[in-house]
C-alpha cells in the first residue's frame, strides 16, 4: 500500500484547498493535497488547468505548482480511522496519508429538490452541467433551460451560451426585489454580477425571478418542463434542464473526524480551526460564499496550520468582509415555501433506493426512514436525498458512517490499527494548540 506522511494535509483542490496548500507550503511545511478528481481547481475552476481562461485561477494554479506541495490527484478519502491518518483510494488502490495538521476544503455540492419527473436523464445541476460541458458534454445547439436559485444559474447560463448552447430561459425562485437588492449591494464591491447580467441581456436570454419548475416530462429523457410563478403556469421545451437550488456544504468528512457543526456548517474559530484539535476547515463547508471567500479562508487556515499566526491574522479583515457577502447571499436566495410541496407522494425522494416521498414521510425522522425504508442508504449515502429531506421534511439528515464513500474491500481490510509508537507524534499529544 502507498503510504505518505506530511506536516499538513489538505483535502480538496478548489480555491480554499489551493490557498491553504500554498500558504502552508510557502511557510516551509511539507504539504500534501488530495483531490478526488483528475484535475485541480475544484468545481469553480474546473477545466482551468487544461485551458486557463480565468486570470485568478491561472495565478493560483501556478502558485500551487511553485509552492512545493505534493498533489495526490484522483485521491478520494474514504475514512479517517484515527487522528493523524486518512485512508484514501487513488487509481482504485488504497493508500494511507498521515498528517500532523489537517485542512478540510471539501467544497459544496448542489441542492436538488424533488419534483415530478426530476429523475429523468438530461436533468442535472447547473454547476454539474457546466462542469461536464467543460469536459466534452455536448451542449452546442442544445436547448438548455435553467432553473433553481443562486448566482450559479447566471454564471452557468453565460458559460453554456458561450459554448454554443441555446439557453431558453433562466428561472430564479427568489423574488425580483430580493435579487435586485442583492445585485445592488454586491455591485458596490464587485463588477462580476453586473457583468454577467449584462452579457445575458446582450445574448437575449430571459432571466425570470419568482418562478420555479413544477413538473418535467419526457420518455427516456427530459423534453418538457412545466413552470410557474405562483399565478400562471407555462411549458418550455428543452434538451437539457439544469436545475439546482443553491449549494449544500460537503460536511461528511468533517463529521467523520468529529468536527462540530453550527447551523449545518463546520464551526470554526478566527483561525479556521474546527472543534477537533489540529483540524481546520476552509471554504464552503464553513458557509456558502464562493471562491473569493474560500481563497482567503484557505490562506488563513494554511498559515495557521504552519504556525504563521501573524500572516493569518493579517487576512482576518478581508475574510470578515466576505462574511457579510455570505449573509447577503443567504438572505437574497432563501428558498420559498412552495418548493417544499413540489414533490407528490409518488415522487421519488431517494434516487439510489427508489424510495418515494410518500413512503419516507411515514417515518418520524431521518434515522427511522433510513432503517425502515432504505431511504438514503444507497450509493450516494444520502448526499442527494438527505439534503432534500432537510428542506422538505425539516429532518436533520446528515449522518456519517465509515466509509464516507463506497470503498474497495481492499481499502477496508487494509485499515490499520493505531500504532503504539505514534503516541509521541500524535497531534493530540502536542501541548500547544495552533
Amino acid at each position, binding site marked *: 500500500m502507498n503510504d505518505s506522511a506530511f506536516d499538513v494535509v489538505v483535502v480538496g483542490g478548489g480555491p480554499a484547498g489551493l490557498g491553504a496548500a500554498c500558504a502552508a507550503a510557502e511557510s516551509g511545511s511539507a504539504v500534501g493535497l488530495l483531490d478526488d478528481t*483528475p484535475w485541480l481547481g475544484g468545481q469553480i475552476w474546473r477545466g482551468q488547468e*487544461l485551458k486557463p481562461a480565468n486570470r485568478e485561477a491561472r495565478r493560483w494554479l501556478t502558485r500551487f505548482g511553485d509552492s512545493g506541495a505534493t498533489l495526490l490527484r484522483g485521491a478520494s478519502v474514504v475514512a479517517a480511522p484515527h487522528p493523524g491518518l486518512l485512508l484514501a483510494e487513488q487509481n482504485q488502490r488504497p493508500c494511507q496519508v498521515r498528517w500532523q495538521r489537517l485542512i478540510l476544503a471539501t467544497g459544496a*455540492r448542489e441542492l436538488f429538490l424533488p419534483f415530478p419527473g426530476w429523475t*429523468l*436523464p438530461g436533468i442535472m445541476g447547473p454547476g454539474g452541467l457546466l*462542469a*461536464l460541458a467543460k469536459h466534452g458534454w455536448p451542449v452546442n445547439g442544445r436547448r438548455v433551460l435553467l432553473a433553481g436559485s443562486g448566482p450559479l444559474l447566471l454564471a452557468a447560463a453565460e458559460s453554456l451560451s458561450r459554448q454554443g448552447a441555446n439557453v431558453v430561459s433562466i428561472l430564479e425562485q427568489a423574488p425580483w426585489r430580493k435579487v435586485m437588492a442583492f445585485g445592488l449591494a454586491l455591485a458596490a464591491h464587485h463588477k462580476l454580477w453586473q457583468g454577467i447580467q449584462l452579457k445575458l441581456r446582450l445574448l437575449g436570454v430571459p432571466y425570470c425571478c419568482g418562478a420555479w419548475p413544477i413538473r418535467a416530462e419526457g420518455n*427516456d429523457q427530459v423534453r418538457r418542463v412545466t413552470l410557474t410563478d405562483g399565478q400562471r403556469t407555462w411549458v418550455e421545451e428543452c434538451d437539457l434542464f439544469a436545475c439546482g437550488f443553491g449549494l449544500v456544504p460537503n460536511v461528511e468528512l468533517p463529521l467523520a473526524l468529529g468536527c462540530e457543526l453550527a447551523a449545518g456548517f463546520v464551526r470554526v474559530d478566527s483561525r479556521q480551526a474546527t472543534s477537533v484539535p489540529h483540524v481546520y476547515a476552509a471554504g464552503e463547508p464553513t458557509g456558502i460564499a464562493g471562491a473569493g471567500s474560500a481563497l482567503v479562508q484557505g490562506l488563513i487556515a494554511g498559515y495557521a496550520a504552519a504556525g504563521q499566526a501573524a500572516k493569518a491574522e493579517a487576512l482576518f479583515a478581508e475574510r470578515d468582509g466576505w462574511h457579510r457577502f455570505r449573509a447577503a447571499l443567504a438572505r437574497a436566495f432563501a428558498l420559498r415555501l412552495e418548493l417544499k410541496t413540489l414533490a407528490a407522494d409518488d415522487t421519488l425522494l431517494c434516487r439510489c433506493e*427508489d424510495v418515494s416521498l410518500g413512503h419516507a414521510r411515514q417515518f418520524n425522522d431521518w434515522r427511522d426512514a433510513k432503517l425502515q425504508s432504505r431511504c438514503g442508504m444507497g450509493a*450516494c449515502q444520502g448526499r442527494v436525498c438527505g439534503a432534500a429531506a432537510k428542506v422538505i421534511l425539516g429532518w436533520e439528515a446528515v449522518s456519517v458512517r465509515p466509509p464516507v464513500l463506497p470503498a474497495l474491500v481492499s481499502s477496508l481490510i487494509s485499515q490499520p490499527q493505531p500504532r503504539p509508537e505514534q503516541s509521541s507524534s500524535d497531534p493530540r499529544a502536542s501541548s500547544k494548540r495552533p
Partner: protein
Amino acid sequence: MTTDQLQVRVNGRLVTVLAGTVVAAAIARAGVAWSRHSVIGQPRGALCGMGVCMECRVMIDGQPQARSCLILCVEGMEVVTDE
C-alpha cells in the same frame, strides 16, 4: 483523427472524442441517454457532474460502479452502461 482525439467504445459502439473528455460526456456523444437503470427500472443519467450522486456510474474496462463524470477517456477504453 488528429492527435488530440481519441476513440472509446460505448456499449460496443466506437465514439471519437477530444482528449480531456470525461466518460459521461462520451456516453452522451454516443447517443446513449442514460448510464444505468434504477431499482424500479427508471433510466438515469449524470446529475451532479462532480462525483457525489453516483447516478452516472457505469462499467469502465471491466471495473463496475465507476463514476463516469470523474474519469477521463483513454484511447481504447471500453464503457458499458447498465452494468
